[in-house]
């Protein structure tokens, strides 16, 4: 990664051909054009050397005793997917050429060929190799930039907001009694707007991490019951939750769920957060977890305002938020459920919702048990 190593390797062509005359003429023609050339009379020797040198370009004859050109291509592709392969074919049939291309050869050279034809095809091959490598380097740089952007820039976006909010928090806390009612009101509004923005940056950061595959760990396992209890416990401490009753019901001896504690905490946290926000004074929020065959089932139910049928299809869409008179003042980023869905998908589970307007909502999450050989059961079908 990073700097491009400049070496003789970048100028090297391997020629594998059982015909000594072809080897010799290729060597002479290409040397004259400034290439470093190594020739091999059979595939085995050439492949062994290729593992060490990693040349950008390989010229290989199709018809050879022992290991033929097709077999050489097959083995070389596994060793080095980037090497550009040109096949030489004595029987210039379209079929053999097409077969070789299908197996990953870049171009073909029918025998007999002129020095000019060989040079042209080799030059084109090198051009192709350079482009492929540039593309790869650019992709790596892009990923690096993205990674730095989300971690560092999001911190730099949040730090000033955090400082501003901290001033307002302290101002209100220490000077509440002396401040005019209007100042208190405006400070409170400012606090709410800053919190909204901080939440947005945080959620956006999480989404970026999820999209990069840097958040969920499918190989980890976590005690989802304990996570649920902790989240409920934490929410109970919040002053805004005081008019609600929060309970948790965890099946005793519940198996571990697939996934790391950070992602699962976020998942449960987001669902409980919604159940709290879209509730009504005196309402209830219940978190339950149990097992069902190879699955862990987590339910977060509330006795809140419910979700209108028309919003249901858009629930897991980015930045989609219901805008009814009842919900327009509820703060939120419109990313919470998107994050939940991505976490669940990443872990091979599912998330669903049942809701009745005016009565409440139940979110049901199914996650694979950690000890289940989930790859067999859940993985995408492999092969053709």
């Amino acid at each position: 990664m990073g700097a491009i190593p400049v070496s003789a390797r970048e100028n090297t062509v391997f020629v594998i051909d059982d015909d000594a005359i072809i080897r010799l003429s290729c060597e002479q023609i290409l040397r004259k054009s400034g290439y470093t050339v190594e020739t091999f009379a059979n595939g085995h020797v050439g492949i062994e050397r290729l593992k060490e040198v990693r040349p950008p370009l390989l010229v290989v004859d199709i018809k050879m005793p022992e290991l033929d050109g097709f077999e050489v291509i097959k083995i070389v592709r596994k060793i080095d997917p980037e090497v550009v392969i040109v096949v030489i074919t004595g029987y210039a049939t379209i079929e053999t050429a097409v077969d070789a291309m299908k197996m990953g050869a870049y171009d073909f050279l029918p025998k007999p060929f002129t020095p000019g034809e060989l040079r042209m095809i080799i030059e084109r091959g090198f051009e192709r190799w350079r482009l492929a490598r540039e593309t790869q380097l650019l992709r790596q740089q892009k990923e690096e930039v993205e990674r730095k952007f989300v971690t560092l820039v999001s911190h730099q976006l949040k730090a000033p907001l955090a400082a501003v909010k901290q001033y307002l928090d302290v101002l209100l806390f220490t000077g509440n009694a002396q401040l005019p009612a209007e100042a208190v009101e405006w400070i409170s509004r400012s606090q709410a707007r800053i919190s909204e923005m901080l939440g947005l940056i945080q959620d956006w950061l999480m989404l970026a991490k999820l999209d990069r595959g840097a958040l969920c760990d499918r190989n980890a396992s976590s005690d989802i019951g304990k996570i649920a209890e902790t989240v409920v416990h934490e929410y109970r401490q919040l002053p805004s939750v005081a008019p609600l009753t929060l309970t948790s019901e965890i099946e005793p001896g519940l198996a571990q769920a697939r996934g790391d504690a950070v992602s699962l905490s976020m998942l449960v946290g987001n669902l409980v957060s919604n159940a709290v926000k879209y509730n009504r004074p005196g309402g209830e929020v219940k978190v339950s977890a149990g097992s069902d065959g190879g699955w862990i089932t987590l339910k977060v139910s509330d006795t809140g305002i419910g979700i209108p049928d028309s919003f249901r299809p858009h629930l897991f869409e980015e930045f989609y938020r219901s805008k009814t008179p009842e919900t327009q003042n509820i703060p939120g980023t419109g990313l919470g459920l998107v994050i939940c869905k991505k976490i669940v998908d990443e872990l091979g589970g599912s998330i669903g919702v049942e809701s009745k307007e005016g009565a409440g909502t139940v979110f049901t999450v199914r996650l694979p048990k950690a000890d289940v050989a989930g790859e067999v059961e859940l993985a995408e079908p492999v092969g053709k």
Partner: protein
Amino acid sequence: MSEPKSVLIIDDDSDFVKAIQTLLESSGYKVRSASNGRDGIQLAKNVQPDLMLLDVMMSERTEGFFVLQEIRRIHALHQTPVIVLSSIYSEDTVFRVDPQAGWLPANLFLAKPVDPTRLLSEVKRLTSEPADQRSSPAVGREKL
């Protein structure tokens, strides 16, 4: 009245320091601050505060983590309670560090901006509890 407890804030964000300093002073704490790890460690050695507030993401991105490990190596500060603050996480994200994570020997983690009521109650708790009753800094456990 007993001697006021002293708090050392190590943070490179001067606005954040000023806000927290005002808050703590209004509750009777004696507050000092340093804007980088090196000055912070020196000041901590000199004044031996009753508690430290430490930012983990100062100019040298992870500076705070090294400051914390350095502080724990100093005998006189080995037991001093440390609250780690960070704006990496927001308040509604559950900030949880593995209780077994001995690499981050803090007593408590709080997200920035910090709720004044919560901060005051934690500072009070950590400065009044005897060291052996606190959550052990050696395992960096957060009390939930």
